[in-house]
Structure formats: structure tokens, C-alpha cells
């Protein structure tokens, strides 16, 4: 199953789940560097 970017009734493009996860991992990295006590950040 794909997630799409939808605008005025049309899918403009497909969302890449791997890239989405990588971006989230980048945020978690920032959280880890900030020393935020957060379970996912410690993974």
C-alpha cells in the first residue's frame, strides 16, 4: 500500500516510507544530541 500526497483530488506524488523513516531518524538524532529522555530516541 502507498501513501500519496493528495491535492485538489489528485495524487501529486507517492510518499516514500523509507525516506520518511530516515527523516524521523534525523529528528531522533537531534533529540539524542539534545539529551532528551525519550524512549524512541534511545533506540
Amino acid at each position, binding site marked *: 500500500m502507498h501513501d500519496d500526497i493528495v491535492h*485538489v483530488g489528485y495524487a501529486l506524488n507517492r*510518499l516514500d516510507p523509507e525516506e*520518511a523513516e530516515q*527523516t524521523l531518524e534525523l*529528528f531522533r538524532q*537531534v533529540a539524542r544530541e539534545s539529551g532528551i529522555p525519550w524512549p524512541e530516541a534511545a533506540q
Partner: protein
Amino acid sequence: VKYVDEFRDGRLAGAIAEAIALAAAPGRDYHLMEFCGGHTHAIHRHGIQDLLPPNIRMVHGPGCPVCVLPMSRIDNAIQIAQTQNVILCTYGDMLRVPGSNHASLFRARAEGADVRMVYSVMDALRIAQQRPEREVVFFAIGFETTTPPTAVAVLQAESLGLRNFSVFCNHVLTPSAIQSILNSPEVRELGRVRIDGFIGPAHVSTVIGSRPYEFFAAEYQRPVVIAGFEPLDVMQSILMLVRQLNEGRAEVENEFTRAVTREGNVKAQALVAEVFELRRAFEWRGLGMVPYSALRIKKRYADVDAEQRFELPSLPWADHKSCQCGAVLRGITRPQECKLFGNVCTPETPVGPCMVSAEGACAAHYTYGRFRDLRQTA
């Protein structure tokens, strides 16, 4: 919603805010323009300005298609709607945008014109199929995101042999508008508007890619980060811009790698190139005549072009003399500095288009930001 909720995580926002505060050099100011009204809305809605150090200022840009359409085009749409036998279809916000002499499509409808709100151009096409005895006109507005669907509709109308469907085309282009801002006297000479870098809209780049920004990032030495519309996306793009500025770089970076590539959606680009061509110039509210900043329907599809089908005079236009929408769109004036803001002009009674659309800087500030003003003055 998957890949929406995760990008709204408040704890992560706090971490990115901390990283921004660490990266922002004390004694240096950062003036960053979010071009797109969707980002303006996100910044206000999620209180992002409050998460930034005081030396980072967000400047709202003109990327709201409802806001930048000049009054003369609204008047033209009203003229079409008032033509006998016409059904005029358009996106909801357009009904409320004021034309000249307090006219609007809403008012034209109250006076008997057949004006219909649609969610997609395909709805308009369907109405044309169902009502062959009527002339159905789609009032098309929007940046590169709404243009491919309009192209599809034009091609579909042709393949279906629909003779009663046409498009009043007002599609505009993001990179040309950013270039116009960078060329404006306020930015280049007067120094009234300082813009150190840009946040580019991700949904536009899902179609056009990131490549179109490379020229002016290099030419004007302003970094661009293409960002999604969730709060963490916006925060991360601010961090990326601050880092670029600190390092003296002016590059195009892509924060929204989950759907944006350098090339974009090539199929959508081909559809647009098949149906549309560049206008030599187009008038933008606030920016004036901007060269090569809009599209028109190619001669090959003239049968579907409402500008060929209807006589549409080029009308002189003037905004309400106290309305500051033009200056707001150029980043010179902040919404709350307009004397009509919040008293005469509200989302219920908009005087200018920036108060109509949810993406308009005035509507966003009225809905969310005015409470921040109250807090600051309390």
C-alpha cells in the same frame, strides 16, 4: 495518520528548537521567508515563532494563490458568471474574494448567477457532461500543484468531445515569484525587506522538483530549503537554513525527501507542457507585472480557453485604499500593522484576499497569531 502524527511530535519539536537556538549565532539576525501560505498557516497554527530565538524572524511570502490574484481577474470571473447560460465552477475560497465595488462571486450568485463550488476540476467536467445545454467554465487558480489536474481536465474534455467546457486559466509559477521578490527594489536597493533565505513549498516541488530553485540560489546567493508542512518539517528546514547561513552556503536543500526529488513528477510536467505555455507577463497582487510568471492555454486547445471564448476586457483595478494586502504579500507590512486588521477586516468580512484564504497571512494571524499579540501586550 501515518507520517503525519509523527511529524507533529511536541518532544521532537522541543529538541529541534533547542538545536536551532544553539545554531543561531548571537548577535546575528536571520530573516527567513516562507514563500508558501501553507507554511504561513503551519507557523501560526503550531506556534512555531514562539519556539524560535528572537533573532530568527519569519517573513511571510506571497505564496497564496487566492491572495495574489489581482482584482481585475476576479472581476473577469464575475463577468463570465453573469453571462447568460454559464455555470462557473471554482474552488471555495474564490467565492469570497472581493472584486471591485464590493462585488464577489458569492454576491453574483446571490443575484442569480450560477456559481458552484467544486473540490476538484473533475467536478466541473462532470457538470459539463451532465448539462450539455449549459456553458461550464472552470475558474482555475493555483500554483504548480493545481496545474496538472487542470491539464488533465483540458485533455479529457478534448477526448470526450465536450464543446461546453472551458477553463479561465490563472495558474501561476512559484520560482518566478521568488525571483521577482529578490529583484524588487525593497529587497535589492532600499533594504526595507531583508530576506536571508527561503523555505520552499514541498507540494510544489513534488511536481517541479528541487532543480528550478538552483539558479536563483546561486545567482542571488540565498539558500533554499524545500520543506513539508508539518511542524517538525518547518522546524527542521529553519535549522537547515541557519546552518547554511552560518557556513556561508547558498544551496538548495531538500528536507522533504519522502516525496520530493530533484526532477519532480516528470509525467505531470509533461501534461502541463502539453496544454500550457508561458505568458510573457502576468499581474500579481502586491508584486505587479511579473515576467514569465503564469501560464496560458496553448492555441491548440483554444476551444477550451475561456479567454478566447468570452470577451474579457483588461480592467483597471485598485484595492481598497486602506487595505495593505499588497505590502503584506511583499513582506513589507505584517498583518497586524494594517489598520483594517481585526476590526473592519476579519475572515467573516474580508476586505482583502489575505483575510479570505486560510493560507493568507492575515487570516492565519487573525485565527492564531492575534492571541500571541495579546499575550505580548498584556
